[in-house]
């Protein structure tokens, strides 16, 4: 079973709908015990980085960290991916999960922010999550902060400079864009995660 973690930030229906479409068994939950029992975890997220503090207060952060420690596959989407890093300039006092090194940052003033719309991926072919997703594929973004390129980057994207559109490290996966809103390409990626 895939747990879609609900911490009160945004709308999780679209993610559930996409996983349902793929035939994956999944449930939206805010219960740390249920998250702890799940075979896979998806952490969506919209809005402000500070909203992830709820994860800490509710015990969900601990449950997620424990599961990750046991090798359970994890997928962070949008702010859910940013939370995998140590922190974000959006809310410097909020601690992320810290499984990836670095800090999420603002877009430079040279481009409009937020970055909204369909943009292209430059894909690292060894990625498991992006198997069957060619470089140049379009996916849907909507965000004001971004993760820099780092050792875990498996897809880059260009908007006011290169940033991490997708990260992958062992059984940890993250995407800045919304696979549930990225048509066939997004469904392929989610299908790959389900098959991990």
């Amino acid at each position: 079973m895939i747990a879609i973690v609900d911490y009160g930030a945004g709308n999780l229906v679209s993610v559930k709908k996409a996983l349902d479409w793929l035939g994956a068994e999944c449930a939206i939950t805010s219960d740390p015990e249920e998250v702890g029992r799940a075979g896979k975890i998806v952490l969506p997220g919209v809005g402000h980085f500070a909203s992830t503090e709820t994860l800490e207060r509710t015990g969900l952060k601990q449950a997620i960290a424990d599961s990750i420690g046991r090798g359970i596959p994890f997928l962070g989407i949008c702010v859910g991916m940013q939370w995998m890093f140590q922190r974000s300039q959006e809310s410097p006092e909020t601690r992320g999960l810290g499984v990836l090194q670095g800090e999420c940052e603002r877009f430079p003033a040279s481009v409009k922010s937020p970055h909204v719309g369909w943009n292209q991926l430059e894909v690292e072919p060894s990625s498991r999550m992006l198997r069957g997703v060619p470089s140049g594929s379009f996916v849907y973004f909507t965000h004001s902060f971004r993760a820099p390129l780092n050792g875990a980057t498996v897809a880059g994207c260009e908007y006011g400079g290169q940033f991490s559109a997708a990260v992958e490290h062992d059984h940890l996966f993250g995407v800045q864009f919304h696979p549930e809103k990225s048509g066939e390409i997004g469904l392929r990626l989610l299908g790959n995660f389900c098959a991990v």
Partner: protein
Amino acid sequence: MLTKRIIACLDVDGGRVVKGVQFENLRDAGDPAELAKAHSESGADEIVLLDISAAHERRATLLDTVRRAAKQLFIPFTVGGGIRTLEDAAAVFSAGADKISMNSAALANPKLITGIAERFGSQAVMVAIDAKRCEGTSSWEAFTHGGRAAAGRDAVEWAREAEASGAGEILLTSMDRDGTGAGFDCELTRAVADSVRIPVIASGGAGGAQHFVEVFRQGHADAALAASIFHYGFSRLVDLKEEIGARGIPVRRPC
């Protein structure tokens, strides 16, 4: 490269798409769910469904329509029309919409924008501005209630306030151009797009590929929306994007 979005709009009344539709190969050319899927498959970057009936007794029908359309739609999906409270918005989101669009209710109470943005994120809140040029000037007034009531507000100034209140996008319709096919109002679009940092979706007046090119180049629009232009067949949208792309505007093409 970030592409310019081409958005297909469905005007829905009592659960049926109301503009003249001539899609082929559809079992039911007036069914919003089928049309939304057809538009998505023919290359629309996003779908907007506007409930123009908005009569209270029809809300249940709308939610059912949204649910059916959302089920097989994996691109961004916006629903507007008659959303007056946080609860209305929440119901539309749980039916499967990714964004809501508000006009009259947002103008009457900009705090509603803030409330919905705090709960669902700014990216989920589109503020629709219906603007009409004040005759002989380069200023535009905002209208509400489907263009029937003047709001007594300058459209550019209201767009700024909507952004400050938490709106994530502006859906800007030129009432002067709407339905004419004479091209978008590039001057209006540019005035708003240059005044805010959030994306501006131009609407009203699309008649051909050149109009889209103009509103992206001269109007500084981030996206453009049209309804009737897409209702002549699936291939039109594919061809339209091809033509816009050939004129140097970055658009999404299927891989």
